[in-house]
């Protein structure tokens, strides 16, 4: 049936210990035509949702390794299925850690090399706009988005890294405010200053920075909106192509 005003429904998964779920929900709901619903980790289905967000926090107290227990939550079967059918899956901070543990994204996130929990606004360079998460941005644009993590040092072996660069899966890198990729701009020791990567199919994206905390000017930056806007554009395009 043709719908002139499609409503985009986004699932925000709440694990025990998630703490950015309502922030993500509020950020998403600030976009016209978008609704976001909190979905409990005990659920086993995600039908009817156009996109899935795994929010930040400390799922299962970060026991064992960050994301290692959440990976086996009942909902993760549905997340995996959504990812394989092309649904957009966004993992922020702990959500990124969970996606890596689940094998939906390559590599892993290790303890910051400084051993410090870093909580601050910093700069990110857009490395590729060829993704459903960055299409509304510009190549080489510098975004100001905060981080808040103790375990955000991205690591992947040399072969994986080469493949990530070759297929332009590195979408965001830590940079200085002019956009230069430098060691001092790297808050955690991530290999190649990597802040966010997407899957080979490009519909799964994980990043350590928190775009949902940069969606209102009162929070100091609205640069996070471009990531959500990109996702919304993709879903809207998909909806109009299937209903036309």
């Amino acid at each position, binding site marked *: 049936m043709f719908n002139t005003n499609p409503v985009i429904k986004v699932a925000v998964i709440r694990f025990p210990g998630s703490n950015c779920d309502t922030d993500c929900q509020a950020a998403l709901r600030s976009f016209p035509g978008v609704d976001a619903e909190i979905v409990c980790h005990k659920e086993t289905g995600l039908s009817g949702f156009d996109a899935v967000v795994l929010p930040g926090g400390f799922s299962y107290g970060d026991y*064992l*390794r960050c994301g*290692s*227990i959440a990976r*086996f939550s009942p909902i993760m079967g549905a997340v995996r299925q959504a990812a394989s059918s092309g649904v957009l899956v966004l993992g922020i901070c702990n959500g990124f850690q969970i996606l*890596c*543990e689940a094998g939906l994204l390559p*590599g*892993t996130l*290790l*303890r*910051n*090399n*400084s*051993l410090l929990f870093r909580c601050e606004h910093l700069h990110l360079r857009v490395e590729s706009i060829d993704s459903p998460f960055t299409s509304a941005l510009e190549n080489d644009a510098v975004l100001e988005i905060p981080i808040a993590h103790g375990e955000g040092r991205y*690591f*992947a*072996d040399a072969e994986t890294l080469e493949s990530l660069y070759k297929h332009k899966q590195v979408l965001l890198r830590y940079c200085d405010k002019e956009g230069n990729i430098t060691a001092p701009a790297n808050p955690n*020791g991530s290999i190649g200053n990597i802040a966010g990567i997407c899957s080979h199919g490009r519909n799964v994206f994980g990043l350590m920075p928190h775009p949902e905390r940069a969606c209102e000017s009162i929070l100091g930056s609205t640069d996070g909106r471009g990531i959500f806007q990109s996702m919304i554009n993709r879903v809207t395009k998909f909806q109009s192509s299937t209903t036309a």
Partner: protein
Amino acid sequence: MKAIVTVMPKPAILDPAGVAAGRAMEHLGLRGVRSVRIGKSIEIDVDGADEKQLHEICHDLLSNPVVEDYKLEILS
């Protein structure tokens, strides 16, 4: 069945906590500290598990093969 699983960061992985602990050892007067690596030791007491199943658990849950190695010791 009782088992101990030892999980260690792979040799190529920087272990900043180990480095920090090593520096503290030097401050306490221990000379010639070459390397300190911090891992985990996990004790398991389970009825009716087989070794193959435990290896799967070690691989999938208790360690992250991207950055860690594990050793499974069956005690009894």
